[in-house]
Structures are given as structure tokens and as C-alpha cells.
């Protein structure tokens, strides 16, 4: 089960080489995203688009807010 985290936990994970995945549509990502985040919109999330993600690092998803 994915672990739900808050800001302080996020800030602890970032130095551990966590991968930030912005799952918002590409135009929203282009306008504004967290530093270093990559964009994989929810509708495009599949085996192919995640193939390059390292399996040994924390992966953190986020969108705009509590959705």
C-alpha cells in the first residue's frame, strides 16, 4: 500500500534521491512543478512510461491538492 506523507516527510525523502512524479496534465506541469519533478500524467501511467524509473529509490506522486 502506498504511504501517504506530509510536507516534512517529503522533505526527508528528497535527499534520499526520491523521484518526484507530478501526475498532473502536461500543461499544468509546464507552468509549475516541484523542483526536479518529472511528469507522468495519470492518464499515461503504464508499464512503458514508468520503465525508466529506478525500482530501488522512493517514488513520490503528487497532484495539485488533496484529490
Amino acid at each position, binding site marked *: 500500500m502506498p*504511504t501517504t506523507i506530509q510536507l516534512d516527510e517529503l522533505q526527508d525523502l528528497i535527499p534520499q534521491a526520491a523521484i518526484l512524479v507530478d501526475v498532473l496534465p502536461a500543461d499544468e506541469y509546464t507552468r509549475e512543478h516541484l523542483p526536479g519533478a518529472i511528469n507522468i500524467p495519470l492518464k499515461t501511467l503504464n508499464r512503458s512510461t514508468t520503465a525508466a524509473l529506478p525500482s*530501488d529509490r*522512493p517514488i*513520490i*506522486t503528487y*497532484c495539485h491538492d488533496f484529490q
Partner: protein
Amino acid sequence: MSARAAWRIETLGFTRVYRYRPGKADWLANGLPVEGTQANVPRAGQVARPDIPTCQLGERVGDVRPRVTAAGWDMCLVVTDDNVVLGRLRGKALQANPTAIVDEVMEEGPTTIRPDTLLVDIVPRMQERHVVSIIVTTPGGRLIGVMFRPAAEARLAAFQATPKDTNYS
């Protein structure tokens, strides 16, 4: 959306999957930097002055006032040990009987805004209501600083005078 994404990633075989539930809105509201074409849009947190003097509920006005004056300010924010804003001391309250306790004379619950508030939104509201300054805090109420309208107006005018490659107005 991020929950479904996290679950989907886990079904794809990843084992260290997290979901930052409060999302980008929370990140921005805490005054943290972002990247992207609108990363430089001016926000309240960028012009807030963090050097505003602070005091605590149990202090005497006579002890606080010299500190505020020496720092070159005419107001002081009342905060908890964790820097959460409880009130404001200015004008008559700051000139009150020196033996008065801050708790007895402070303004309760002053208006605050978040650091990600866009200057293009807040500056006109401050102008309409003749508000000279406003307190900027995190969503949890922790003090970031005080934003003065002239500084916000100047920052916004400089931004609006700069050519842009986005459709932000």
C-alpha cells in the same frame, strides 16, 4: 489523483511508493520554490519581511516597546514558542501602560495570507481597502513575515514591465 497514481505505480512492481497527499498547493503555500514557466510570478512570500519584531503573550508592553523601537518598527507580532501568530501590537496598544501584559492589549487574530498568494490578486485588494501591510504565514499559522503594500506594488510593477513568454497577465 495522486492516490490512484501511487497505487498504479505499485501495481507496476515498485515497492517504495509514497503519495504527497497535500500536493503542490501545500508546497506553494509553505513558500517553497517551484520550477516552470510561471515559477517567477511574484508572490507574497517573496516580498514579506521576516525581520518583524515578535513578542509573547506574557511579556510586559514596557519591555516590548523599546525592542520594537530599536529595531526601527512601529509594530510587533505576538507569537507562540513555535512562531504561530496569535496577535498584533501596534498604535495605542504598543503605547499602552508599560505594566500592561501583551495578552491584555493585543489585537486578536489579525488577517493573514499565504506566501503563494499572487501579488496580482492581493495588491488591488489592499489598495481598495487602504491596507498598508499584511501578515504572511504558513497554512499552519507560522510567521513568515509582513508584506508592505509599497514593496508589493513595486515588485508587481517590475514584473509586469518585463517581457514574458507566457500568457500570464
